[in-house]
């Protein structure tokens, strides 16, 4: 359902000690943040990709597909930084003018963009390495070691479980709306989405009541224990 989650449980590194995986990923992530060097960035991207594809054995095609969205995203959002508007064409290496304004790119803006791309890509692949090889259920123990508040950890653990229940519900409800022509134009789409969220909300409240009964029956004592094998 959620692709990254599926790979996290099925990749070849899933049983490796999560502390090691996350430490490696985090260390290199930090390094790419600290040192802005294009060669280092390219090296990181290659290293991480090789680990992800050849050691964790995540299908190359799927990996590229996962990268595609953020890459187009970076390229598009970088345009704003790349393009400068100035009254003085000398500041720009290439420009066109409209009225008394010049629009173009400068040395510095190109330089900044290259750095952004390098850093983003190396950070992205480091994080991909962590999230594609480490299931959330292992990450939670790391949060615990980082001494994140218990409430936050418990909530995250529960939210993670409920996300999958809700995703399925939304997909089912949306599908039956679609089959009953709920999305044939803008007006019906808004109406349908409103109904969908409303239904989801109502079901959520009923679910809460029923879960409270389950909690009672399971002798809930106020804590959702998170116990890892130390």
């Amino acid at each position: 359902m959620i692709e990254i989650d599926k790979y996290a449980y099925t990749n070849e590194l899933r049983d490796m000690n999560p502390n090691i995986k996350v430490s490696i990923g985090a260390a290199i992530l930090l390094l790419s943040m600290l040192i802005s060097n294009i060669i280092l960035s390219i090296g990181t991207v290659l290293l991480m990709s090789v680990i992800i594809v050849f050691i964790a054995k995540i299908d190359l095609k799927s990996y590229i597909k996962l990268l595609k969205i953020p890459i187009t995203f970076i390229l598009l959002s970088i345009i704003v930084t790349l393009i400068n508007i100035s009254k003085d064409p000398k500041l720009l290496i290439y420009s066109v003018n409209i009225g008394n304004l010049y629009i173009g790119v400068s040395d510095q803006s190109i330089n900044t963009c290259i750095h952004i791309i390098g850093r983003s890509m190396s950070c992205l692949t480091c994080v991909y390495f962590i999230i594609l090889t480490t299931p959330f259920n292992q990450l939670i123990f790391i949060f615990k070691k980082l001494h994140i508040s218990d409430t936050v950890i418990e909530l995250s653990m529960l939210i993670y479980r409920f996300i999958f229940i809700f995703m399925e519900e939304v997909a089912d409800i949306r599908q039956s709306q679609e089959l009953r022509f709920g999305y044939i134009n803008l007006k019906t789409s808004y109406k349908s989405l409103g109904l969908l969220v409303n239904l989801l909300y109502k079901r959520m409240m009923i679910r809460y009541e029923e879960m409270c009964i389950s909690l009672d029956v399971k002798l809930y004592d106020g804590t959702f224990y998170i116990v890892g094998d130390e």
Partner: protein
Amino acid sequence: MKKFKQWKLGLVAALMLIVLNPAISNAMHIMEGYLPIEWSIIWSVIFIPFFLVGLKSINKIVKENPKKKVLLALCGAFVFVLSALKIPSVTGSCSHPTGVGLGAIMFGPSVMVVLGTIVLLFQAILLAHGGLTTLGANAFSMAIVGPIVSFLIFKLLKKKNINRRWTVFLAASLGDLATYTITALQLAIAFPSSTGGVAASAAQFLGIFFMTQIPIAIAEGLLTTIIYDLVTKN
């Protein structure tokens, strides 16, 4: 020749808007690694006190009734799923609602700080939306400023007895715009224009953002109004 250049530029600009539109529609998140380390840290530092205040209020709720943990988590998952929905926008493209306005109105801004941050974390690790390194910056715009603006507008207009639909609409869409504005400013400060500094880059970022985000904010406002109507009806 000059004329040709101008014409070409116009074409490029138009094309850019068309291409950019759907991508920027999701641009309330700052990408993984996009911000330099100093800005990642600064925004995290700004974000933490707000988070602690939110955490305190959540801890109070949970202490009174520990079962509320389940309710809070259900709300968190609800907001996550809401933000993964695609809404068609007036311009023909699709966008994802932030769910920030609705969440703030329904659950209050202090709860939303914590839930919103956890949701951003899940977006980063399950969907690769946003990022871990930019979590502080994103949380500041989406889990703090957005909800607070929405909530304040909602309270204010409610007190002034403004028509409820308008109240909800304005709270949601202005909350959205506040989020985008903060994101634009965060980017502008981190990447000042080489020719005109922060002011110029801010103008550029805000320009593009408002062009693309106003229809989306309207869309979110409309949707939130419809949902709020339905939810409060019974």
